[in-house]
């Protein structure tokens, strides 16, 4: 069991997929303008990476080495299509808010990277732990970025229609640039710089 928890913890801080590895930036920056979208994307990401890591790890002895990348891509794209249909059926509001970024999970470097670097060479339980750790790390990073962007860009935090709190002055005069693309780059850059300063991230 110690192997399981080691692989699980690794994804959260030491090799956090977003801040340390700086992979899969496209969904991270595009869907973090509100907390709702960030949570929806994290859910989709977790479903896809867990399912594809599991399948690839189970099939790792069957997949010929030469064609492994196309096989991984097809497996991942299949799960992305399934998740897309599930979202469209059960949470249509989140589905339309995420737009093409949900489909773009299929070419997410992080998911493909874990398939290639981990799931295809490790046993099923370790691959599952790796996928879970990466999902939690990804989810935490998205929540952190979208928290700042929604707080500054909208002046308050609203999760799935429930208003948690609003700030007095900012709510009337939100800094709308944080909701736009510029805010995404700025918050991301400052967060990485902060983590480097306090020593959580060693070298990028």
């Amino acid at each position, binding site marked *: 069991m110690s192997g399981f928890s080691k692989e699980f913890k690794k994804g959260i801080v030491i090799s956090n997929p977003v801040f340390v590895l700086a992979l899969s*930036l496209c969904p991270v920056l595009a869907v973090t303008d509100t907390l709702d979208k960030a949570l929806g994307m994290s859910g989709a990401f977790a479903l896809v990476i867990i399912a594809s890591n599991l399948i690839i790890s189970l099939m790792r002895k069957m997949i010929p080495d030469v064609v492994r990348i196309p096989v991984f891509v097809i497996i991942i794209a299949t799960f992305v299509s399934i998740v897309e249909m599930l979202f469209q059926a059960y949470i249509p509001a989140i589905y339309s808010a995420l737009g093409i970024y949900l489909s773009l999970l299929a070419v997410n470097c992080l998911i493909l990277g874990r398939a290639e670097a981990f799931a295809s060479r490790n046993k099923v339980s370790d691959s599952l732990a790796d996928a879970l750790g990466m999902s939690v790390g990804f989810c935490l990073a998205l929540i952190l970025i979208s928290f700042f962007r929604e707080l500054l860009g909208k002046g308050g935090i609203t999760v799935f229609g429930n208003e948690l709190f609003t700030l007095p002055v900012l709510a009337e005069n939100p800094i709308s640039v944080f909701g736009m693309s510029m805010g995404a780059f700025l918050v991301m850059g400052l967060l*990485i710089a902060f983590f480097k300063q306090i020593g959580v991230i060693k070298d990028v």
Partner: protein
Amino acid sequence: MSELFSIFIGLALINNIVLVQFLGLCPVFGVSKKLGPAVNMGLAVTLVIFVSSTLAWLANNYILIPLNAEYLHLIIYLLIIGSMVQMLEIFLKKTNANLYKSFGIYLALIATNCAVIGVLLLNADESYNFIESLIASLGAGAGFTLVMALMSGIREKLELSDIPKAMKGLPVIFITAALMALAFGGFVGMLF
């Protein structure tokens, strides 16, 4: 005619594919250390987007829609892009070995570049006709090449400047991208 022009300008400047839609960030952060390779990368991506969006449009309108199998479009697009990149790789290896070497791993990574698949998905979402989707792919390619060139120019200057220790590496590139995105925000005022 003006509609085609506004599609082109829309993807190249106003809704710039990299800075506003966040597509294709990996090569922008990875290959943008020097101006020459960055521009070549931009042109290679433009070529792949152009050819694969042509094929994707044909596949979508003549195979998937008649068969009512649009849910398969993601997988079909990935196959088209993957084979186009493979062909480009073979072609470059034979004709221009130096360029091939300077791309390194990033050439194969065009296959999983969100800019390429993103444009194909956008074309399908907007249900553009054939000419419109060609123009959209050229606009996206131009926008991508422009950002690659600008970013590598700025990074060549950044090499020589004195940056606080915590900001070195990725953070300062993100801040640069933020300022560029703000500047590109000025194009929103362009209306046709």
